[in-house]
């Protein structure tokens, strides 16, 4: 498990955006598999934070709030996509992820095979270093579910990437 760096208190929204937007965009790209979609979600999350910046700025963990907001948006989008897909084809067709990504990249291809929830759990715990409890808060699920999703994601990646067995 990697340790997250202690966040410095943000001075202004512009400073907060400057400090966090690239990392959030990368995380959302890994979760969605689509740069444009990741940028939309990132902007949505920052807009929501901006609208209430006076309150968010005083929080102990404004970054955690940002990620919770971003993941809420992500889950809402998933529901809309699934609902739309059900209406059209009668099942939840996912469309997507990393489909247009570089075919030469094994990791991108492997990530594309994972369900979005597994990707989100993996990115939060592995890339961003959140513990399962905090990741659970961000995703709105229990910590045991985060551990299970991340574990399934890692196992699937190992299989797809041919990594060593544990």
């Amino acid at each position, binding site marked *: 498990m990697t340790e997250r760096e202690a966040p410095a208190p943000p001075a202004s929204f512009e400073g907060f955006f400057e400090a966090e*937007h690239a990392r959030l965009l990368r995380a959302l790209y*890994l979760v969605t598999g689509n740069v444009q979609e990741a940028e939309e979600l990132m902007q949505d999350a920052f*807009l929501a934070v901006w609208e209430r910046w006076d309150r968010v700025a005083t929080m102990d963990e404004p970054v955690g709030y940002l990620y919770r907001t971003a993941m809420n948006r992500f889950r809402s989008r998933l529901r809309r996509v699934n609902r739309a897909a059900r209406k059209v084809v009668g099942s939840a067709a996912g469309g997507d992820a990393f489909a247009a990504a570089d075919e030469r990249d094994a990791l991108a291809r492997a990530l594309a095979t994972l369900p979005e929830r597994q990707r989100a759990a993996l990115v939060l715990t592995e890339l961003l270093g959140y513990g399962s409890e905090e990741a659970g808060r961000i995703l709105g699920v229990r910590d045991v579910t985060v551990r299970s999703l991340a574990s399934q994601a890692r196992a699937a990646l190992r299989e797809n990437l041919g990594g060593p067995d544990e």
Partner: protein
Amino acid sequence: MSELRTDLERLGERARPGQDAFERLEHRRRRKARNRRLGAGILALVLTVGGSLAAFDAFRDAGDGRTIGGGGSDGLFALWPEQTAADLAAAQERVDAGDPGSAWRADGMEVARRFAIEVLQWPDALVVHRETVGPKPYTYHFDLSVPRDASCDQIVSNATCPTSPVTIAMRSLGRQDGVWSIVEVYSEELALPLVAGEEVEGGTRISVPTNLPDGEKVSMGLAFLTACDATGIDDNVEASNGMLEFYVPAVPDACTGYVYAMLPKTGAGAVAIGSFLFTDAPARPAIGYFVEAITAIPVRFVNDVSAEVAELTCDGTGVISPSRSTVSAQADGVHIAITDSGEVPVSFTIVGAGGDGAEPGERKETVWQLPPGDATIYCGAISGGGTDASSSANLNVVDPNRLYVPAGLDCASVVGEAGSYAEGATGFSGDPVQVARDHLSGLEFDDLVERALYPESEQPVVRVVRDGAVVATVRFFDDGHGGWLVDSLGRCADTPIGSSEEPAGVSGAPVDPGVLCIDLQVPGESDNIHEGSDLHVDGRHIDFDTGCLVAPAGEPLTILFSNLDEAVQRNISIYTMTPCLRDILAEGTSQVCPPETFELPIFRGEIITGVSEIVYELGPLERGEYYFQDDVHPAANGFLIVG
């Protein structure tokens, strides 16, 4: 830093924000505000023409699907004074008609003051403009506070008035000069991570950062503003480690309502007032109270994703609700919470699984190994002689992550035995599956031994699958020191599998690699067995130089693979042996095994192209037979015997 994290960071680098990222965010913000403005203009026009409620659909924000001013056919995302489009339109009509009793609706400051008095139940309020957000139509934020000379003692005996302000966000949801609506209420110490119009899922948690000290209780809950055929939920949540956690139970889908967190001061102890705070409900308790701090956000509730915990209420009088709900299985099983809302102890029974009880006011959460599908739950007062068969609820268990593995035996005649131990007996440590492999007698090489039911169930269950049929299951229990003791063993009557204190090994097919490989290999190649923990395999002419690898169990292995085929892609992967694969090797047939045979390789070797070498490193393997092949040319294959 782990290798996976490094790889993820590298892949994430593909998404690089532009230099103008902040400018684009500002542009988006302006566009969003313009959409709101356009929506408001359209609404005003339509209301003027015909007062049509359908106009509120025009508020839909093309940007993210949320509605800002209006909530579509369900109504508005607004808290007070009106929560529905119909009521708002009626209020606007009254103001336009010059109704003196409604004139205050056009005065934002007066709306704020009345809100403090009528909803927060303050004796009076100072209203101070805090900030204006927008371009037009602006959202105005006001800080409300109790005047210093006011007394709250008249409301609640010996109470001091709130010292921190409550902030409200107000917007004219109709035309720009229309009546004012309060769209959000918030206090600094209760920062709900939601925005107006957001979707909130049933079955999820809402985590609220708070500055309140540990142990302080906050009233949290949700309420429905539209006709959702549901009642609100009021709960007491304790602050812990700077966080308030509120569990959103199953909710009617697509209902509009609000989520709140509140510190009420009452003269009657804890009281549930949050779920009808913003309505003129006659059911509001006739008690003295005022609100010290509150955050309330109007949202849309959705329920197309099932809950992680099935929340059921039983009052002991023959009512269990909701009568039908859906729950998503978790890694340790299906979570069911029964709240006894009555005044007598209740017991509940989950058909085919078991039961439990709850005391009045208690919420009892238990975990069950229920398969996906429908389950029936009965509940009734214990004093009434047990559960009331007339009171049942249907629970639909879904398993989106395919966690559940059946443990039913595939045979007509079943034999069972239960473990019997002296007090203080110690079990076998380690993974329950490995314990089963080591201590079940009568296993054969082709047997698949794997975890059954849910993978993190408190009482592990392991099943034995032989030729595709479940022939035995063993249930373990914890000896209290991390060891596993056999609780019960079930098996098909014609399958002699038992439990053994001593490591039992496997029976059936012999492990002698000399015999096995000689028997199974093509005549003339029987001397071509590669043995050891550092193996070397040559690939030539789209084949391997051996069909039989022999390696020690429990040690890391390496395979040096030399591809001698020019410009040809080759690799070596290792799979679990199955009867089908064994037939292929033994008979040299080209039959097609089921696709799942190759879905989960034990090891997948990197593909190399042309004349080159690669060293594959494998973790320790368990004793048994395995199958290896070139994934690009599966006809190149063989046995890996680990013993």
